[in-house]
């Protein structure tokens, strides 16, 4: 027994030797605290004069059960918080929820940590956030992707919602213009408003193209009239990449050559299908610019419908810190660049100049209200 213990410690020592190169110790003493030095330097680059006041300000975030590494809306929202920490030199705090019964507890933890503004992510946290906002009038609250009716009249509560039907409408038009088979496909992660809003916009964009060009491009995977379509199979549909791949393959076998997956990480299944099709099938990504967040698939991504959750979170924190926080809901639209179509990247040469100018026209028409998009899921 002694022998085995000895060998374990020997292995540990050996690995310690190999893992830790005999590097020089940093000479200056203050670098002992790495975190403070890095935040100090970044705030210094932003503005040295205000950093002292900002350092007392604390912005916090509570994730839903997806966690901040979900490659989807939690992660994008979290990017807004980390940007605020870097650019404004403020303190931050965050806590991830394991499951639904943690929501209220986690918000309370953030309140106990004396956060000045608390951002929660996702409609599941809605009730807990509103209750906390009512109980703590001196703390500002914001929630991403929900505008709860119960929060009406609360001065310290802000809803951050996105009318992604507008940008998805453009994506639908683009898909219809790019398809060679005359069929485009979409599928969702779950039948919830924040997903179906994309699918509604997409389908109406295709419809608009058909009307304008007198064509008959078909949308597979979503019936806007019936509000029903293709969804990734349970369980955990948003994380089920294999399920996303099956669903995408199903659409491709029905003839779709442009895919619009609205399923968070599971949408990567569609990108895999597109990548292995030798350019026959391509995809339009959602939430973030796919050429940045899923760069290895860039050659299969025509464009992306981005949803600026990071920008909205950052702006909210900045406003709260500057004292200009307002309880009016933030609605991300094409007009305020809260949502939109990301660059074409590798497809820049393949999308015709005509389509590009038509998309510009559509964008201004939507902003002006001449094109009306109807989706039950749109933020009111």
């Amino acid at each position, binding site marked *: 027994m002694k022998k085995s213990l000895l060998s374990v410690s020997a292995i540990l020592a050996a690995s310690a030797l190999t893992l830790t190169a005999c590097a020089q110790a940093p000479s200056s003493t203050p670098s*002992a605290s790495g975190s403070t030095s890095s935040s100090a330097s970044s705030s210094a680059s932003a503005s040295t004069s205000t950093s002292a006041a900002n350092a007392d300000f604390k912005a916090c975030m509570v994730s839903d059960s997806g966690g901040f590494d979900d490659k989807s809306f939690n992660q994008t929202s979290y990017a807004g918080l980390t940007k605020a920490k870097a650019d404004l030199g403020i303190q931050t705090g965050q806590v991830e929820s394991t499951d639904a019964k943690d929501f209220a507890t986690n918000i309370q*933890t953030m309140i106990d940590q004396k956060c000045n503004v608390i951002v929660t992510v996702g409609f599941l946290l809605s009730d807990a956030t509103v209750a906390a906002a009512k109980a703590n009038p001196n703390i500002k609250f914001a929630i991403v992707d929900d505008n709860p009716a119960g929060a009406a009249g609360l001065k310290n509560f802000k809803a951050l919602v996105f009318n992604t039907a507008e940008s998805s409408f453009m994506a639908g038009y683009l898909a219809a213009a790019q398809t060679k088979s005359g069929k485009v496909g979409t599928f969702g992660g779950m039948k919830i408003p924040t997903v179906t809003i994309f699918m509604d916009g997409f389908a109406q964009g295709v419809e608009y193209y058909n009307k304008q060009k007198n064509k008959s491009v078909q949308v597979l995977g979503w019936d806007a009239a019936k509000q029903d379509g293709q969804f990734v199979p349970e369980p955990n549909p948003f994380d089920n990449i294999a399920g996303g791949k099956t669903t995408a393959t199903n659409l491709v076998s029905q003839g779709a050559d442009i895919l619009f997956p609205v399923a968070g990480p599971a949408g990567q299944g569609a990108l895999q299908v597109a990548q292995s099709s030798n350019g026959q099938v391509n995809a339009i990504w959602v939430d973030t610019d796919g050429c940045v967040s899923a760069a290895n698939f860039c050659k299969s991504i025509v464009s992306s419908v981005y949803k600026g959750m990071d920008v909205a979170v950052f702006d909210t924190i900045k406003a709260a810190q500057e004292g200009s926080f307002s309880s009016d809901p933030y609605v991300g639209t094409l007009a305020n660049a809260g949502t939109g179509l990301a660059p074409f990247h590798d497809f820049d040469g393949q999308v015709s100049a005509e389509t590009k100018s038509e998309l510009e026209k559509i964008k201004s028409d939507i902003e002006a209200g001449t094109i009306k998009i109807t989706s039950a899921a749109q933020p009111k």
Partner: protein
Amino acid sequence: MTESPTPDRTARRPVRLARVDWSEITVTVFALLLAFVIGAVLMVIADTEVQQKFTYFFARPGDALTASVDKISTSYGALFRGAFGGIGPITNTMAQSAPLICAGLGVGLAFRAGLFNIGGQGQAIMGAMFGALVGFKLTGLPLVVHLPLAILAGVVAGGIWGGFVGFLKARTGAHEVIVTIMMNYIAGGLLSFALTQALFRRPDRADPIAPVVAWNATFPRIAGTQLHLGFLLALVAAFVVWLVIERTSLGFRIRAVGSNPSASATAGMSVANTTMVTMALSGALAGLAGVQVALGPMSGATPTPLTAGLVGTIGFDAITVALLGRSRPLGTVFAGLLFGALHAGGLVMQGTGTPKELTTVLQALVVMFVATPMLVRTLLPFLRARRARRAVPAVASSGGLA
């Protein structure tokens, strides 16, 4: 708790979990220590800042060592504070552990009858579903009527969900492991579907989220704390389970069937009936766990509304809780409290930059070491020597603790 005469001891053996004695408690304590030591090592490895200091370990070892000690002490300090540091955290630990205790009792009860109830998850989902349904659909009832009704609905729903498996096993011989696992999927799918239907969905919303449970169906709590009726119910449930197992003829039948079904049948007991009743009781306890999450008030005073993920992984954690508690009611209560503490503390530990996944790893390490005393004794030889010395008197005294 005193030991019953001979049949009891034979009944326990097949469940494969040895009698608790002092040497076993020592092993459990060292198992916990071992888990925390490994957790500390992982914590240091996972932290990039500390890691960076190890790159010049041989130039100035002090930096790396103080950083490691700092890291470990702040993280475990936060874990401890989050679980036991004051009335808020302590009551939070109790609130977190209550559903785990209930579901763990259910799984443990089934173990005693030689049944592996992997379906705690599905039974808890049904309990939460129907507890919440009665909770938000009925209005205007007084607390003394509404709350018991909601609890009853959930417990009965869980009992039926579990009892059905017992029925299938008793009548057809269908293996309960397969059936309960499949019933978990069915319950999960049923809940997801139900939340899209008018009966369960909140009227003003299109998301799959149920209305908030009526105040009169919410567990009463002590204001300003997380301590609510649920924890009391869990303790009562533990006592009742103990009473049933140790002091009733049903409990005797459960233990007898668990130890040797053929012998029990020969002795004139109905194995089929015992199986059905045990599974129904087991399901009812898991259903009570579901009721706990559906009706238990969280910090915001109201219960978390019913959603697809509300039950979390209680049904699966319950299996580990039951194993950890050696399928004994008192053991299950302590195991549930340990899990509740780890969970409550883990949420606070995140504040120190330790990822929440580490709490899960810690839980798994704890369970692994506690459930494998031989492994701990092999890693820590001095425990083995101690056990050998005590082996003889242990048989004579036969002091059961839990």
